[in-house]
């Protein structure tokens, strides 16, 4: 594990909170929680969780099973009452303004839940009546989630992917400003996952805020601006995807006098951890500085035999930061 990640893990704090233009965002957050805690007897499901989701961003909420993601989402939506701490959505406290918050929020919690005896269309009609919105938008919603032709079919006859798409449609029915989506890609085929990705990006472009949890980390990496990783109810790390992964790029260097090379590289300030395995060094350094690495070594008459970048994936990063904590 690199020096940088150790610092992140120890503090559990945000690595960076910068938007694409590099400045801290100001104003009211879309979702903000402070010391949010939920306990069931002696079990601490969520432990003093503080998070901040900015407006019009896609925020990935990650963690192993049982980490507390769904419990947190349930608290944000008023299904579960926090033991302590508080949360605000669109500047409003969930304890006092839940109806107003839910009117501007769409959600999927765990698996899609609808009435098995009713068609997809009728289920959306029920959601519309509950939400107090017009049923006139239902055909467009069914079209958006590619269920127009199956709208009259009973929900119980839907495939898992169709159920998931209907749930996304229901979440969008009230034209929400915020979407809280728990595993929305569950059961989707590869084409469905791509469609979901495009939909998320489009929603973001339209100014929606999305808090999304998923185990499909490759997708999260592609669509999320920032992520938070939770384990055993506690924040392990949160920050922008670029920063978290960018700081952990590795260069694989093959060199004959590896021990000397290791000592040289460790003295370079912008190089992080260096791991030696025979004639192979794994150097934590930005991929863009590969040429500098070879130059520094060559100046000491250490000549590189092979150099290969190892780009860090979110999947690998996730496993790194959660596995140490798993025991």
């Amino acid at each position, binding site marked *: 594990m690199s020096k940088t990640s150790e610092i992140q893990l120890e503090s559990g704090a945000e690595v960076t909170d910068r938007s694409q233009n590099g400045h801290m965002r100001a104003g009211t957050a879309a979702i903000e929680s402070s010391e949010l805690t939920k306990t069931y007897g002696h079990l601490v499901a969520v432990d003093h969780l503080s998070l901040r989701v900015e407006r019009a961003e896609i925020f990935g909420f990650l963690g192993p099973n049982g980490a507390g993601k769904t419990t947190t989402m349930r608290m944000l939506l008023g299904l579960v009452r926090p033991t302590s701490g508080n949360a605000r959505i669109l500047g409003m406290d969930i304890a006092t303004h839940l*109806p107003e918050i839910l009117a501007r*929020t769409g959600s999927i919690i*765990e698996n899609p*839940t*609808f009435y098995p005896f*009713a068609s997809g269309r*009728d289920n959306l009609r*029920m959601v519309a009546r509950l939400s107090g919105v017009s049923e006139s938008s239902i055909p467009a919603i069914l079209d958006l989630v590619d269920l127009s032709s199956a709208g009259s079919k009973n929900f119980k006859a839907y495939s898992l992917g169709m159920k998931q798409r209907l749930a996304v449609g229901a979440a969008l029915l009230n034209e929400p400003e915020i979407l809280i989506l728990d595993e929305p890609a569950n059961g989707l085929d590869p084409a469905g996952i791509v469609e979901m990705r495009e939909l998320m990006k489009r929603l973001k472009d339209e100014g929606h805020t999305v808090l999304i949890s998923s185990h499909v980390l490759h997708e999260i990496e592609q669509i999320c601006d920032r992520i938070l990783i939770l384990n055993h109810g506690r924040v392990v790390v949160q920050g922008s995807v670029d920063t978290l992964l960018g700081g952990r790029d590795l260069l694989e260097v093959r060199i004959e006098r590896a021990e000397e090379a290791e000592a040289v590289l460790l003295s370079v300030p912008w190089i992080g951890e260096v791991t030696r395995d025979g004639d192979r060094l794994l150097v934590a350094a930005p991929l863009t500085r590969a040429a500098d690495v070879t130059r520094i070594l060559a100046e000491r008459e250490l000549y590189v035999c092979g150099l290969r970048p190892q780009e860090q994936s979110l999947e690998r990063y996730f496993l790194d930061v959660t596995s140490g904590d798993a025991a």
Partner: protein
Amino acid sequence: MIAYMSFEWLKLTKRWMPRIILFLMVCLTVLAFWGQGSRVGNQGDLFLPRGWLAALIYASFFAPFFWPVLGGSWAGNEYGWGTIRMILTRRPYRIQHALGALSILLVAVALALVAMLLVGSVAGFLVGVLTGNGGFTSGVLSAGFLGTLLKSFLAAWYVGAFYLILAYAAGTVFRSAAVGIGIGIGSTLAEVVLRGIFTALGGTWRDVAQHFPVVYTQDMARLVAAPQLIPGSSMASVGSDLPGIGESIVLLAIYMAILLAITLVTLRTRDVTA
């Protein structure tokens, strides 16, 4: 509240279970008319217009077996299907949600009783014609009769409401349709057994047994209808130890208030983890 009622009404119109309950009630009422109509000397109360009262008495008799199915499954299935999440993440007023659902279910009970009156009309007419007594007994229909008919309707509805709320409460507390239905129906059977035991034990036990809900529900509609039934007929005969109508209304109201309070407090305070 209106949004919840609109939602529950749509659900009611889409669900098959209320229609199946209604169908079974119709079948049993027809069978009851047939059975009673086949016994010479007991047919008089089936001829119209008394047949309407008979239909309501039968509906009230079936109440402990049918309305718990509706109430228990209505509440419990929301947890079984997980749709309680869908409801409360759209509109989080939990008390209104329960009251909206119960309001629509009570309307459903009333509509079923209207259907029973229609069935009673046809069955009573047929029994009268087939036994050579004509389709409608003249001289019975009066303002007093209509008043009794209305009160009998309300009594049958009141009894239905009790069993509906009982099962709805059980379905909510135990988050299960099966438990809701089981407690709804099973409690009546258990009361009958316990009542027999307690009565045999005598003394305080007997007094306790006299306040079981089933004591107030079992003959309420018949007690209300009795003045307009043929004096001395089997349908008009009620036990002398039964509580009065006023007492039954009050005690059942207390029982229903307790069940409703349990339901609402449970809904209000409990986390939704389904």
